[in-house]
């Protein structure tokens, strides 16, 4: 078979694949276009996680009738004219890829009218081919409707995750832009329900309030760093106080020159600033805007423009780290967590692969490879203590005698061959998890009905999971029904969560845990894991001797080789030999 040039429709589909991987990418491209068009009101409407319909309506500048068809040509853009312009891009889009790529894999309708023209234009495309173009009545601005995404690329369609997952990703993208542009009004509507609406006041706090709610905003500190005259870098935004932290890095959000980016380097800078402020294993909450001269930045690195390359990465790293640290020290009493003790036996390891320490792997060619960036961005794993290896052997615990509780967190036990320290939370979580799994297999998870149903307000993502995983939640003992808007009614709770101090919050916490768990487990498994986690005693809960004995008894019967919710060790041993060495008896 000889080499030949691909026919245009095949080439287009391949190109589309780079930009449009999933519905969230479409939303991103369309929102960026709306922003570039100077819109002050952007409304995003999604049905069935974007598979059925994505509609982005704006009140921006619109496209004149004679240029409408051109917008769907490859490399057609109003944003860049010469190669020189690429190095000083001020707009979000510039490559002229987005619209043709989207059009190639869906049915697109665009209705647009520039403010100064009386009549607008409606253009319809299917699979990249123009179906019709006609003058039409239209509001000023542009409305792009994308239907039947991937109708002509079944393979891609097959790889879409559940509606809840796709909806979650879309909500994430739109909320990020809403935070990046608080002066514009964003509305996100999912399956006919308004998920959030930012007021467009220009205040970041107002946008944060609309997206994350009062509980988060209460703990946020406003960062108002001034321009650094030497580097020309300005860092501002809002960061969480010491009380606000999360189990993953999803809430470290960065905007570089108004563009939402993923950046391991910026993440490392913030985490370094937070060292000792949030507990080990937890991650800070921060929404940071970094502004710098456009010539210091290469945004044309990643097909979806999710990554950027900094010309002087170390300066950026320092500017961010310093600005965050300064505010933390000023605003909050920083209390340092000491490094873990040295004399630690190897914890009983997980048989399954441990969760990645660094979920967002730096891609080849990403900025983390730049020498400048490397010098300022230590590998995050270096914050973790290296635990010396020694074998405990077996996956079950030997019989232990409880000596007492330490720091209301660890249960201190004597075993046949040394001293055992048991993390009370993870231990209880393991016990509950095994019990829940067994009960689930027998369809017999005990649930307790509530005297009065509780109403809980959820985030759009959480609500999407409730909608979609309704049966799974029910099998776990959560009887939850929608109650209009983002509110749901909880009628029963899993028995393990009965004594949770705030049963309503427990549901949200379980959903959140499951949403952000990236270990590729099924929804059912993830929800089970986090129900066990939330039902378990916490670090800091005082336990009576009887409670500790009972917990250890149950833990002894548990198979420790199965994965636990956090992949953290449950039991740490100080062997007799080690003790003897430490005390110079050997």
């Amino acid at each position, binding site marked *: 078979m000889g080499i030949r040039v691909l026919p245009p429709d095949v080439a287009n589909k391949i190109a589309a694949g780079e930009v449009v991987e999933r519905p969230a990418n479409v939303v991103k491209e369309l929102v960026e276009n709306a922003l570039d068009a100077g819109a002050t009101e952007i409304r995003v409407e999604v049905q069935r996680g974007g598979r059925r319909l994505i509609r982005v309506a704006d009140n921006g500048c619109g496209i004149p009738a004679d240029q409408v068809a051109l917008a769907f040509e490859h490399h057609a853009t109003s944003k860049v004219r010469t190669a020189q312009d690429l190095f000083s891009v001020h707009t979000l889009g510039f490559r002229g890829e987005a619209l043709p790529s989207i059009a190639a894999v869906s049915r697109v309708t665009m209705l647009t009218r520039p403010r100064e023209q009386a009549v607008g234009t409606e253009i319809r495309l299917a699979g990249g081919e123009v179906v019709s173009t006609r003058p039409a009545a239209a509001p000023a601005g542009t409305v792009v409707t994308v239907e039947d995404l991937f109708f002509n690329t079944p393979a891609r369609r097959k790889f879409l995750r559940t509606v809840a997952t796709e909806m979650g990703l879309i909500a994430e993208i739109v909320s990020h832009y809403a935070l990046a542009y608080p002066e514009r009004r964003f509305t996100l509507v999912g399956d006919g329900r308004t998920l959030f609406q930012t007021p467009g006041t220009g205040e970041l706090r107002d946008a944060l309030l609309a997206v994350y709610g009062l509980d988060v905003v209460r703990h946020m500190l406003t960062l108002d760093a001034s321009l650094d005259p030497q580097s020309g870098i300005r860092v501002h935004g809002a960061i969480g106080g010491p009380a606000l932290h999360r189990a993953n890095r999803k809430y470290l959000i960065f905007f570089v020159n108004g563009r939402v980016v993923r950046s391991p380097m910026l993440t490392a800078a913030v985490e370094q600033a937070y060292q000792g402020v949030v507990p080990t294993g937890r991650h800070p909450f921060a929404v940071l805007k970094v502004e710098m001269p456009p010539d210091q930045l290469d945004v044309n690195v990643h097909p979806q423009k999710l990554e950027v390359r900094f010309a002087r990465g170390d300066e950026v790293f320092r500017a961010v780290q310093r600005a965050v640290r300064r505010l933390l020290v000023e605003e909050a009493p920083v209390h340092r967590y000491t490094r873990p003790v040295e004399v630690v036996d190897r914890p009983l390891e997980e048989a399954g692969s441990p969760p990645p320490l660094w979920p967002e792997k730096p891609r080849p060619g990403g900025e983390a490879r730049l020498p400048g960036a490397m010098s300022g961005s230590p590998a995050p794993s270096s914050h973790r203590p290296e635990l010396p290896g020694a074998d405990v052997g077996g996956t079950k615990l030997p019989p232990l005698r409880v000596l007492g509780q330490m720091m209301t967190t660890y249960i201190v036990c004597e075993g046949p061959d040394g001293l055992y320290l048991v993390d009370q939370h993870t231990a209880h979580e393991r016990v509950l998890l095994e019990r829940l799994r067994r009960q689930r297999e027998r369809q017999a998870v005990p*649930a307790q009905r509530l005297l*009065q149903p509780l109403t809980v307000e959820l985030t759009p993502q959480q609500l999407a999971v409730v909608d979609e995983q309704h049966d799974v939640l029910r*099998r776990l003992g959560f009887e939850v029904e929608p109650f209009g808007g983002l509110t749901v009614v909880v009628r029963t709770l899993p028995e393990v969560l009965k004594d949770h101090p705030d049963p309503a*919050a427990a549901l949200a916490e379980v959903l959140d845990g499951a949403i952000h768990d990236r270990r590729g487990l099924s929804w059912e498994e993830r929800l089970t894991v986090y129900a066990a986690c939330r039902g378990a005693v916490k670090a800091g809960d005082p336990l009576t001797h009887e409670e500790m004995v009972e917990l250890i008894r149950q833990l002894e019967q548990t198979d420790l080789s199965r994965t636990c919710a956090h992949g953290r060790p449950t039991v740490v041993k100080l062997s007799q030999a080690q003790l003897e060495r430490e005390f110079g008896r050997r």
Partner: protein
Amino acid sequence: MRISCLQENLARGLSMVSRAVATRSTLPVLGNVYVGTDGGRLKLMATNLEIGLSCWVGARVEEEGAITVPARLFEELVKQSPPERIELEVDTRTETLHYRCGSLSASIKGIGASEFPIMPAADEAEGVRVRVDGDVMAEVVEQVVFAAATDETRPVLTGVLVEFEEDRMTLAAADGFRLSVRSARLEGAVEAPLRVIVPARAMGELGRIVKQVGGEILVILTPNRNQVLFHMAEVDLVSQLIEGTFPDYRLIIPKSFETRVVVDTARFLETVRRALIFARDAANIVRLQVGNAGGPAETHEQAARLVVRAEASETGSGEEAIPAAVEGAPLEIAFNGRYLMDVLSVVGSPQVALELTTPSSPGVFRPVGTETEFTHVVMPMHLGGR
């Protein structure tokens, strides 16, 4: 101050007020007990600012005065003193209490009485006054207070709703899963209905005290309504009120039922206690089978019984049938055995009725054969996916 009193009386008074002493307070004076003269008697007071207790002890007063001394230490000292006359004398200059009992003498460093929080007194307090029989109050409190919530996320549920309307008093308490309501008649009628939420802890203390001192209770609700005072023969209890709206318990109590089963209370309680041996490892689930659920009763005997069953997948299972008078359709339902124990322990009548509708609707317990107006609602448990 210079007084003398009997060791026995002082020890009793201190044990009465010591429950209100603050255990971990940043205000040192709250860890102290107030000891002072009050019109020919000795007055003891303690408060943690949520509740306050005052107690009067018969004494011979030779010189008026007052002081506060560390509560634990003082109580311990008095308790272990010989049963003789105790003499107390305050040195105001050094703020020291000199103590003499038989051959024992001691001096205790205190804090000036002026630093002790002011507590309202019954004879000066203004507000609505209601008289309640002490024995009735003790019984009502016992049947209600255990159902209050212990965690603080919904503050109103950590309290007991106390309602007075015409000649009736009603107490209600609920956590997320059960509700206890008890009404009783008053001797006189109140002019206007009154509704306050009193912390469950304060009601618990009231129940404990009224059992000891008996007599009549004068309830005084202060005009601005943020405090309630319970005045008894020799003890006063003052409590802060909880602000908020208590859920309307009338809406929670089911109006009708499909199945009603009447059993011997003590027998039922024993049976549940035994079932809990197995239920302990299975979320305390105790299943009740009323009549022959799953089919028509083969015999009259099958229909007229309540089967109590518990199983733990690892441990095993047990069941026990008790004779019952069953009215309505057979039914199977599951409850937390602890909740059953709680209500059966206080229901107070030889027989108890359980009213049921479906396996997922509330169960209602009522006493049988007495005039007592007691209703207890428990939400059932069920196994997910079934």
